[in-house]
């Protein structure tokens, strides 16, 4: 099979982690064998924000911008909305042209590999494909699905081979056959479940994995196997059938560190393989129900795929904090009226919220944010030119909002994740100068951020009202 090749990869996992020991302490046992710790999305993260983070890493590794993307694919079993085209928000956050082809893949943890297979065959019209898989499954608190449930995102930039190097998908195949009752989520439900018939689940996994791999034209003889991992044990049950030893799976696995990452699981392992320069990787994405994709990825010139994998943890949670962050024990937003920002007015500000689009005054050259009204510097209204801020900046003023002190829009977030810092940040202009923006600080102990500190912008959930989550910019301390 000849098609588009992978030239860059990016990955992201939330900084919060919880260990198997923390579960054992809380429950007396841990149901997800082979997982040492797992990633937990913060209260202001979801599959869309993780997708944006991974995609930015991939584009940065590639040295390109979103405006080159002609094919955008988003794969997730846990999109924050069951209905609504989230590729529009994903694209807007990355600066992808409005006319790009967009595809959403969901409904099964195979979604990530399916999106990749489609992108390999896509007509890119001299642009690039951006394939993003992000997932953060949830189970019932006392079952194996939840104990294993992790979080992570991965993104691939593909082109049609016009650029040297890269990794090629030399072959792909798939296999599906009905196995009802293996992992499923009812329409309208938040939590994934399964009948937990151990031997039946294992049989389903084995049949679709070997079925897809056997459908490949040739024995791939892989150096590594990037395979779907609902826990840290099941992947190894098919090592023998695939003709590899456990190490071929383990050296690229992420489940032991990140937990079950759903649609991002096998693609994350592929990212790890490409970053490590593995020559031949067999990728197997498995969806319950049951079906599988098998892809062979050849990476002849090690290092030809640029990679930026941001998968390290930063803070360990107790089990109680885990429940709070996920909103399991919080009561939701407060009632009441007061200041209200309508969704249409939020929509008008999306270029500023998502990508920090500022304006340069044509009269005096000063940067303005938001780009509306008389110039902050010269007070003239002679017009402005749009300018996208790179997202780096310096704290000019900062406070930590203590529990109970948040505006109502943030009351629920505060009960989930506690005190937060809010700063006025002087964001750098693309060609010098700066402009100040009030932003919340995330992914940092609030007290650790001071006047003069360097910060970088991140795409996060801001708040939810009337069922509509407003996304926008926060900052984290620069590394």
């Amino acid at each position: 099979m000849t098609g588009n090749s992978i030239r860059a990869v990016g990955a992201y996992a939330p900084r919060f982690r919880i260990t198997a020991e923390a579960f054992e302490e809380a429950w007396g046992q841990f149901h997800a064998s082979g997982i040492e710790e797992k990633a937990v999305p913060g209260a202001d993260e979801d599959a869309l924000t993780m997708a944006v983070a991974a995609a930015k890493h991939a584009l940065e590794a590639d040295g390109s911008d979103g405006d080159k993307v002609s094919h955008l694919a988003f794969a997730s079993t846990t999109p924050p909305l069951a209905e609504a085209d989230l590729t529009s928000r994903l694209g807007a956050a990355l600066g992808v042209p409005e006319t790009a082809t967009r595809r959403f893949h969901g409904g099964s943890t195979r979604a990530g590999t399916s999106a990749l297979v489609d992108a390999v065959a896509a007509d890119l019209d001299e642009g690039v494909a951006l394939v993003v898989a992000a997932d953060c499954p949830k189970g019932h608190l006392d079952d194996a699905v939840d104990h294993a449930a992790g979080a992570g995102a991965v993104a691939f930039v593909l082109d049609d081979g016009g650029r040297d190097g890269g990794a090629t998908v030399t072959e792909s195949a798939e296999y599906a056959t009905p196995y009802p009752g293996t992992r499923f989520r009812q329409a309208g439900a938040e939590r994934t479940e399964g009948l937990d018939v151990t031997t039946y689940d294992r049989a389903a996994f084995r049949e679709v994995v070997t079925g897809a791999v056997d459908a490949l034209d040739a024995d791939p003889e892989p150096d590594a196997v990037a395979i779907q991992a609902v826990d840290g044990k099941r992947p190894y049950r098919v090592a023998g059938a695939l003709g590899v030893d456990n190490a071929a799976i383990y050296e690229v696995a992420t489940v032991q560190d990140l937990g079950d990452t759903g649609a991002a699981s096998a693609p994350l392992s592929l990212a790890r393989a490409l970053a490590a320069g593995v020559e031949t990787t067999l990728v197997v994405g498995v969806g319950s129900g049951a079906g599988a994709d098998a892809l062979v990825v050849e990476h002849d010139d090690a290092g030809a795929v640029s990679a930026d994998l941001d998968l390290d943890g930063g803070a360990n949670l107790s089990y109680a904090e885990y429940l709070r962050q996920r909103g399991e024990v919080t009561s939701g937003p407060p009632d009441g009226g007061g200041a209200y920002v309508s969704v249409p007015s939020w929509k008008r500000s999306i270029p500023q919220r998502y990508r920090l689009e500022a304006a340069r005054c044509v009269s005096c050259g000063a940067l303005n944010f938001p780009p509306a009204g008389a110039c902050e510097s010269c007070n003239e209204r002679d017009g402005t030119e749009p300018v996208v801020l790179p997202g780096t900046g310096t704290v000019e003023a900062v406070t930590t909002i203590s529990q109970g002190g948040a505006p109502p829009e943030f009351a629920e977030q505060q009960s989930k994740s506690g005190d937060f810092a809010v700063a006025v940040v002087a964001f750098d202009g693309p060609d010098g100068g700066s402009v100040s923006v009030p932003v919340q600080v995330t992914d940092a102990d609030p007290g650790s951020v001071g006047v003069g500190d360097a910060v970088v912008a991140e795409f996060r959930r801001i708040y939810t009202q009337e069922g509509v989550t407003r996304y926008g910019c926060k900052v984290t301390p620069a590394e």
Partner: protein
Amino acid sequence: MRDAYVVGAGQSDFGSFPDESYRSLFETAFDAAVDSVAGGIDTDDFDEAVVGTLGVGGRQLGLSGPAVTEHVGLHGVPTTRVENACAASGYAVRQAVQAVKSGMADVVLAGGVEVMTDASGDATKYWLGVSGETEWERLSGTTFAGVYAQMASAHMAEHGTTHEQLSHVAVKNHAHGADNPHAHLGFTCSLEDAMDAPVVADPLNLYHCCPTTDGAATAIVVSEDVVDQYADEALRVAGVGAASDRVGLFQRDSYVNVPASADAAATAYEMAGFGPEDLDFAEVHDCFAIAELMAYEDLGLCEPGESGAFVADGRSDYGGEVVVNTSGGLKSKGHPIGATGAGQVVEAFKQLTGQAGERQVEGATRGLTHNVGGSGGAAVVHAFEREEVGA
């Protein structure tokens, strides 16, 4: 332009009053103002009324002015509601002065009212902070405490202002408020109390923040043509200044002062022909401790950056250079948003007519009131001078 005088002023108690309505509180303040006019005044005398309020927790957003003036029997008197957030009734007083100076009115009632303590915790959260810049500032996660805390962080970074210096503001203002029978929080506190209180928005703690309060205050402003009918001695409005600025802190030229306050003060001093060195007292807008420190600098009571030492050294207390917030200020007397600016004029009236009791600044002849809306989107300053006006 002819001169304007304050011949009477009065307030309700400031505090939390579940048995009172915004109308009954306004009535109490109106009656107190009428009673304070030495020569007496009839409701028929009023040509105009201006009322400051943020909207009484949303229950009377429209026509909240006539809703209170009709209640006190000012039937038919043209009434305007002024909304400039926490500076609402400071601006109401300014409108009254303008009406008198312009010649359109001889007797104007200026006042304000707010009820803030009877809403549920959730509803209160929605209302606090509605006067900040909503779309960006509030939705970064701040209410006013947060924005003033950001200013405090910048002031500390630039001038080395300390947590202890902020705490001295609370100690001083509570000591003053303890002598004010109308005060909401009329108790004293120690420096340790003020320093060790729970954090609200770092670096500001509970003692660095004013309370939410119910209350009303009114002042009666008359022209020089009729002033001698009402008093032998009155407060001449020597200077008036006001200025606006961008509503969001992030769009302002400075985070370590309130430029609108400095502009308003400069205008008021120029009109008055006297300056900060001539003041015996000043009622300044201390919604947060850092706000009082910035006010010292913006009003010229001390040099920029020296406000922390100014309060810690007692230079803004009795026996110092100028006594600031003899009433207890917003911190101790309370902050019923729409009533605060008029309430400052009530204290100025008491000081300049020798009726301030335990709080009296000996021989006070000149004083100033300073009222800020939001975190500095609007500011208004009045300079008053005691004058013999009797025939």
